[in-house]
C-alpha cells in the first residue's frame, strides 16, 4: 500500500444510529425501541482492511447492512467518496451498489439453491447490464479463478449443494467482486466454516485488496482473525463503538476494558505467556441505575460508580491513531475527532 492511498477516506459514517422496534401486540400496544447502533463514527481509508470486532448482537452486522444499504440508517449520514448515500433510492441506489458489495456470513444460505454457480456469479453483470452473455462467462471464469476455484470450468455448472462450505464461500466472494467494487463488506465470512478453510478465505480477501485495490470492511468476532487480516480495528459493544486504532496497537495495547475482556477470552493456543491477562470483566453483571452512563458499565470491573454510571464517556486519544471511549484514561488527551 502506498502512503497516499492509505490516507484518502473512502467511506465515512457520521453519528449513524439504527433503532429496531420490537413487535408489539394488541394488548401491550406498540413495541419497545431497541438501539442496534448508537451514533457510530467510522471512516475507512482507501485500500485498507478495516476489522469491526464484536459479539453477536453488538450491531456489527447491522453496520455492514447499512453500508450496503440493505437497511437504512435512522439518524446520521453515510458518505462514499464524499457523496451522501444514506437514503439513496432507485437507479442511484443500483449505481451505488456497483461500487459496494457484500459477502454474507452463511455460505449455505447466501447462494440460491436452485441457481447454478455460473448464474449466481453472473447475477451482478446481468442486473447491471454489463456486456454480452459470452462476455459474462469469460468474466465468471476469470473471477472464479481469482477466488481460488480452479479450474473454474469444473465449477460453473454445479449447484451450491454440490460444493463444500469453503467452496461456496469462495463462490460468494467471486459474485461480490465480479463488478470490481471499490468497497467490499465481508460479514463474518469464515465463522460458519472449518478453521482450515478460513486461511483460504483470508488469502483471497487479501488478494482482492492487493490486486483489485478494493477497501474491505471485515466484520468478525475473532480478535485473532482481525489481527491477522486487518490494518485497523474497531471494537463494537452493544451498538457503541468503544475503541478504534491500528490492529497491532489495539491488540497489543488495548485501552478499553471491553477490548481487554475480549482479548482475555480469546484462546491463546500455546502463547498464553505472551499475552497479558487484564481481568476487566465482571463475573456477574451489576445493575445500572440510569441508561445515560457508559455502555460497558454493567460488566466493567474497573468502573467507578459515580463517574461511569452517570455520564457517557468521552473519546480519548490513547496512541497514534488509537482512540478509546472510556472515562478512566486520565493519562490520555481527549480526542477531538473520533472518526
Amino acid at each position: 500500500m502506498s502512503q497516499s492511498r492509505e490516507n484518502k477516506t473512502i467511506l465515512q459514517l457520521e453519528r449513524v444510529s439504527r433503532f429496531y422496534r420490537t413487535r408489539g401486540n394488541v394488548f401491550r400496544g406498540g413495541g419497545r425501541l431497541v438501539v442496534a447502533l448508537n451514533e457510530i463514527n467510522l471512516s475507512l481509508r482507501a485500500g485498507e482492511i478495516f476489522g469491526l470486532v464484536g459479539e453477536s448482537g453488538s450491531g456489527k452486522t447491522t453496520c455492514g447492512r447499512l453500508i450496503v444499504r440493505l437497511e437504512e440508517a435512522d439518524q446520521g449520514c453515510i458518505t462514499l467518496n464524499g457523496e451522501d448515500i444514506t437514503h439513496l433510492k432507485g437507479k442511484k441506489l443500483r449505481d451505488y451498489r456497483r461500487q459496494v458489495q457484500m459477502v454474507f456470513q452463511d455460505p449455505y444460505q447466501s447462494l440460491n439453491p436452485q441457481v447454478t454457480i455460473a448464474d449466481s456469479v453472473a447475477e451482478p453483470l446481468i442486473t447491471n447490464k454489463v456486456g454480452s452473455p459470452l462476455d459474462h462467462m469469460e468474466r465468471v471464469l476469470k473471477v472464479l479463478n481469482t477466488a481460488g476455484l480452479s479450474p473454474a470450468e469444473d465449477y460453473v455448472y454445479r449447484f451450491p449443494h454440490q460444493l463444500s462450505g469453503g467452496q461456496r464461500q469462495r463462490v460468494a466472494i467471486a459474485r461480490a467482486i465480479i463488478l470490481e467494487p471499490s468497497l467490499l463488506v465481508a460479514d463474518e465470512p469464515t465463522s460458519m466454516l472449518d478453521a482450515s478453510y478460513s486461511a483460504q478465505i483470508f488469502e483471497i480477501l487479501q488478494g482482492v485488496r492487493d490486486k483489485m485495490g478494493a477497501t474491505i470492511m471485515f466484520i468478525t468476532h475473532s480478535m485473532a482473525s482481525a489481527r491477522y487480516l486487518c490494518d485497523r480495528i474497531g471494537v463494537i459493544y452493544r451498538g457503541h463503538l468503544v475503541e478504534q486504532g491500528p490492529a497491532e496497537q489495539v491488540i497489543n495495547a488495548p485501552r478499553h476494558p471491553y477490548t481487554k475482556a475480549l482479548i482475555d477470552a480469546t484462546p491463546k493456543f500455546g502463547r498464553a505467556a505472551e499475552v497479558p491477562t487484564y481481568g476487566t470483566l465482571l463475573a456477574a453483571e451489576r445493575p445500572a441505575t440510569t441508561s445515560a452512563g457508559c455502555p460497558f458499565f454493567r460488566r466493567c470491573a474497573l468502573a467507578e460508580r459515580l463517574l461511569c454510571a452517570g455520564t457517557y464517556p468521552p473519546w480519548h486519544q490513547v496512541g497514534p491513531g488509537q482512540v478509546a471511549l472510556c472515562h478512566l484514561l486520565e493519562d490520555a488527551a481527549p480526542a477531538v475527532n473520533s472518526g
Partner: protein
Amino acid sequence: MQQATIKDLKAKRRALWRQRFMENWRVFMHNPLGRIGISLLIMFGLMAVCSYIPPMIDPMYHPMTGVDPKVVSSVGPSWQHWLGTDFMGRDIFSQLLAGARVAFLVGVSAAFMSVVLGTAVGMTAGYMGRFTDTALMRLADMIMVLPTLLVVLMLAALFGQLSIWMIVLMIALFRWPGVSRIIRAQTLSLKQRPFIDAARVSGASHLRIIFRHIMPNVLPLAFLYMTFRVTSAIVIEAGLAFLGFGDPGTVSWGMMLQWVWKTGHMFQAPYWLLPPGICISLITLSFYMLGRAMDEVLDPRLRDETQAG
C-alpha cells in the same frame, strides 16, 4: 473465449441438468408409491388415448350417440360389448375410455389453473407484505370457507346446465386459496433467506427477485400441490355429474354413475356400476401417490439416507 471451451461448457451444462433429472427420477422410482402411481397413470393415459379408437371401428361404439340397434335394455358383458351396454344400448367400455379423457381434462386443467392463480397470489402477498398481503389473504380466507361443491351446485341450479369448461373454471376459482396460503408461507420464509439479500446487493430488481430467485424455489411445491388439486378436481366433477349437474354433452365417470342410478340399475348391473366407480377411486389414488412420491423428491429430509457427519 475459445470455441473448444464453450463447447466443453455447454456439455457440462447439459450433464448437470441430466444428472439432476436422473437423481430425482431415481428417488422417485425408489419409492413404491411413485412406481404404482406412475404405472396407474400410464394406464389411464392409455385409456384416454384409446378412447378415440372404438368409434372409428363402428359408429355404434360412440360413447354418447352410438346405440347398438340389437340391444333394447342394459345387458351384461359379451364379445361385442366387453363391459356390456347401458339402458339404451350404448357400449360401457367405450364410455369408460371416454371418461378417462374427461377426467384428465377436468383434473389437469382445473388443477393447473388453480395452482397458477394460487401461486401468483401467494407470491405477491408474501413478497409485498403489509396491506396487499392482508387484503389478498382475507380474500383467500373468504373463498376457502365456502364449500366448493355446494356453491357450484347452487350456481349450476341458477344457470341451468353448465358446460364442462365452466365447471373446470369454477373448480379453479374456488380451489386456489389453499395453494396460495402455502406458497405465501414459503415465500415469506424465502424472503428472509440471505440469498435474497445477496441478490438485492447484486442490484436485482423486485421483479427479478420474484421470478429469478423466489419462483424456482416455490415452483416444485406448487407442482406438488397441483397433483393433490387434480384429485380434488376429479372428485368434485364426478360429484357434480352424479348429482345431475354435469355437462350433459360429455361422458364422464360421474355421469355414468348418474345414469346407473337414475335408471334404477344400482343393484341390478354391477358390470355398469363398478367400472366407473373403481376408475374414479384409482385415478384419484394414483395422483395422490404421485404427489407423495414427489414430496420425497422435493424434501431431502424425507429420504431414508443421511450423509456422514
